[in-house]
């Protein structure tokens, strides 16, 4: 029995980035998943949501909560990531001044998503968008 959840995110909308991770956190808590696993999952989702708000135009989060793992797909329409391995490097960031003033833009997000997930795939097309697919086992 898998539970499907979906959320929309708009580019630039920082106050709504976090809605998906917040809702998913509540669902996982209800399923009695241990706190450490929940933290890893929701931190990864939150980082991905903030990336859509910070770098893309609009996007969505889709989560499939299964018995042993959660599968998350965060896709956006946006400028895309030209060089994924460079973007994954801690410290690399093209974040705007506004994003930095909001407490983000240190270039830590993608590497933190990698650290907190068991499987991660990033696909991106310049000028079209980016799709992050990741899975975490509980």
């Amino acid at each position: 029995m898998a539970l499907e959840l979906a959320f929309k995110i708009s580019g630039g909308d920082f106050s709504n980035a976090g809605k998906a991770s917040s809702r998913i956190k509540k669902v996982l808590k209800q399923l009695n998943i241990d706190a450490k696993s929940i933290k890893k999952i929701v931190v990864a989702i939150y980082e991905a949501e903030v990336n859509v708000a910070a770098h893309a135009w609009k996007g969505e989060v889709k989560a499939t909560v299964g018995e042993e793992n959660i599968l998350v797909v965060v896709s956006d329409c946006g400028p895309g990531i030209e060089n994924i391995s460079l973007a994954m490097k801690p410290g690399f960031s093209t974040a705007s001044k506004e994003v930095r003033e909001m407490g983000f833009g240190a270039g830590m997000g993608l590497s933190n998503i990698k650290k907190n997930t068991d499987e991660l795939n990033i696909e991106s097309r310049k000028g079209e968008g980016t799709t992050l697919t990741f899975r975490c086992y509980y």
Partner: protein
Amino acid sequence: MKISEIIKYADARIVSGSLATDKDLEKAFSSDLMSDVLTLDEESILLITGLANLQLVRTAEMADIQAVLLARGKPASAEMIELAKENGLVLLETPFSIYKASGILYAKGLKAVY
């Protein structure tokens, strides 16, 4: 260190959460960068920050942070307080700078995350 002690040492004001369940925290971290806070493996800590926005409260929620001390007199907005209450996050405001609040609390025994 109890929340009530943090309030006393940092001359702070509690704007979300109650002292009825006076949480006991062992460690703290000072940062304005949510990107850094999200990389911490430690939970149940006090976060000392000069960043007063909704993303701070979201970050605390995702990182399982128990309490936040807003430094240099930055007031928490109504939106922040509402979300903090919803999540059971303790929000404190201090007139002290990050440096001063961190120094005092460290000297009183609140350990560093690293």
